[in-house]
């Protein structure tokens, strides 16, 4: 299945749009209510990070998979300031914006595969996969 959804992320409304599209795609692939909610929550966190830290970016949601079954691939991309210490950003409780600071480690727990690449001054790309169980 080749189905890619691109949601530009600039405002709070875009955060809602992205997570709703993610949930709809998850449900259409046969994900359970719980797993669809996990996908929607993870997208919401990443989209929130874009609005808070980078101001603008994009979330790409794709139906993916292999012989094991379908999965959802989400790529959150921004051209913001980047994260200088990814190790620190992946620790529970770390935040530079006074938020709860459990965004990234929390997202990592919600999904099956998690990857982050960040370049200071260039931006951040966070990629995750959630498989249908």
């Amino acid at each position: 299945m080749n189905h890619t959804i691109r949601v530009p992320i600039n405002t709070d409304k875009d955060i809602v749009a992205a997570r709703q599209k993610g949930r709809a795609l998850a449900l259409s692939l046969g994900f359970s209510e719980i797993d669809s909610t996990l996908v929607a929550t993870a997208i919401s966190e990443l989209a929130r990070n874009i609005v808070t830290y980078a101001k603008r970016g994009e979330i790409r949601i794709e139906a993916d998979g292999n012989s094991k079954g379908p999965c959802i691939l989400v790529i959150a991309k921004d051209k913001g300031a980047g994260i200088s210490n990814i190790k620190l950003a992946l620790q529970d409780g770390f935040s530079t914006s006074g938020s709860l600071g459990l965004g990234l480690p929390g997202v990592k727990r919600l999904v099956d595969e998690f990857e982050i690449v960040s370049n200071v001054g260039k931006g951040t790309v966070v990629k995750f996969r959630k498989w249908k169980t």
Partner: protein
Amino acid sequence: MQTDVVSGIIVHLRRAMVERVVIARSLGVIIDVTAMDIMDSFASRTLREIAQMIRLRGAETVIVGIQPEVAFAMVQLGITLEGVVTALDLEEGLNYLKQKFNSSA
């Protein structure tokens, strides 16, 4: 507010709630989040702030209606809403407040 909660709305809610508590001299506030499809760290932090502000005004907040799958995702995410009273639904929330006010009267 029966809508998919845009974070702008929840921030607006924060101000409206606190103003309301002041004007009405409320003792108890129930926030029903049944309509919320997810609760991310931003939404939960804002709810917690609302509850804390209301507590400083001498009133009590009860969050009701967290859906099962939302609760599941919250725990995975690491959100506990610690220090905030929660109840199953509106009825349970009202019962909680009634009991509390009866016992303190």
